[in-house]
């Protein structure tokens, strides 16, 4: 029997909407698990990514932890895919990019009305440091394929994955390629 394709997925600065869209292939999930094994993914809660054929990255890069995870996926995945608007161009989180990070943190945690007295910007050493700007993943690592959409439709993800697994260059036609 042909060995299965190994896929890892993760969500960086994303909303898990792209993962929901993947689940949205519905009954075709049963066909997909005949073709692939899942490595690290929110679907199975494996904590460290191992050697994989394909890495699907949802979300842009907004903090130091995102960079570490993204580089780890790049190292372990033969093919790395930017899935969804945030991974492709920063998406909604990147709409903070024209604002100063300190101004945002101060407004959210210190000066906006209704906060408890003594509220401060969180500073726990376990919290990853936010970056000044949110970046699409291709600004950090080399990316092999892009699947735009917010989220990409389930049919687009299905078409992309089945093309890739079959060894074809993935092509998204009218209706499957969209940025919204």
């Amino acid at each position, binding site marked *: 029997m042909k060995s299965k394709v190994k896929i890892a997925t993760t969500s960086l600065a994303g909303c898990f909407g792209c993962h929901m869209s993947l689940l949205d292939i519905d009954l075709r999930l049963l066909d997909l698990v005949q073709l692939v094994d899942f490595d690290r993914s929110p679907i199975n809660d494996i904590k460290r990514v191992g050697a994989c054929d394909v890495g699907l990255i949802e979300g842009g890069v907004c903090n130091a932890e995102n960079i570490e995870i993204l580089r780890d996926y790049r190292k372990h995945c033969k093919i790395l895919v930017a899935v969804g608007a945030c991974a492709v161009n920063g998406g909604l989180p990147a709409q903070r*990019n024209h604002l100063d990070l300190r101004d945002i943190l101060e407004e959210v945690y210190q000066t906006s009305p209704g906060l408890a007295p003594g509220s401060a910007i969180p500073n726990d050493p376990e919290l990853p440091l936010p970056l000044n700007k949110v970046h*699409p993943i291709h600004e950090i690592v080399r990316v092999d394929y*892009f*699947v735009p959409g*917010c989220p990409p439709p389930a049919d687009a993800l299905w078409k992309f994955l089945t093309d890739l697994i079959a060894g074809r260059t993935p092509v998204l036609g*009218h209706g499957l*390629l969209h*940025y919204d």
Partner: protein
Amino acid sequence: MSFLLDGEEVPFIPGQTIMEAARAAGKYIPHLCWDHEFAPHGSCKLCTVKVDGRFGAACTVAAHEGMNVDNRSAELDDKRRTLLQMLFVEGNHFCPSCEKSGDCKLQATAYELKMMSPHFDHFFPDRPVDASHPELLLDFNRCILCELCVRASRDTDGKNVFALSGRGIKTHLIVNSPSGRLADTDMAATDRAASVCPVGVILRKRRGFKVAIGNRTYDKAPISEQPQ
């Protein structure tokens, strides 16, 4: 009289540009700053074709008998895709939160040319919006400097509400009023300039997202299959 466009014969009337003749024949040449209602501007360069081996903007080059024009070749579409990628990273084009999504020429042209990523690093510029007008909103984040609003306001509406200011990478759209605000001009929602924007800069207020996804202009068919 006729010329060859991607090997197919296209008739023309002397004085017509390649773009005008192609439009009359129902052929699509990708473009953003051109609109048949207005004088050509020749700035976006999306309509660049190869005329007998030399590059030229289809919206400004006159058609000639027997000329051989390449349009949708891989070479030209590759260059067009690069132009689009530069337009996308220069502004803030977040399609999921844009009211124009689905009706946007920049977006539809990017689909047509299979633009899968922005490729370049984003500028993420800081461009404030102008919500001063009671019926219209200006979101400069999406401006591609096509000057269609400038031409429509000046040549059709006779008002001269818009202009481009600055040079090179600092070029930007401005409103011609002492305050710089749209509310302080005589712009009306019925002006041609109010509906000419190919992207999501000039928007009617209280209209956003009224048309369901699936029924918008470019949901139904790609831009190349629609009337130009």
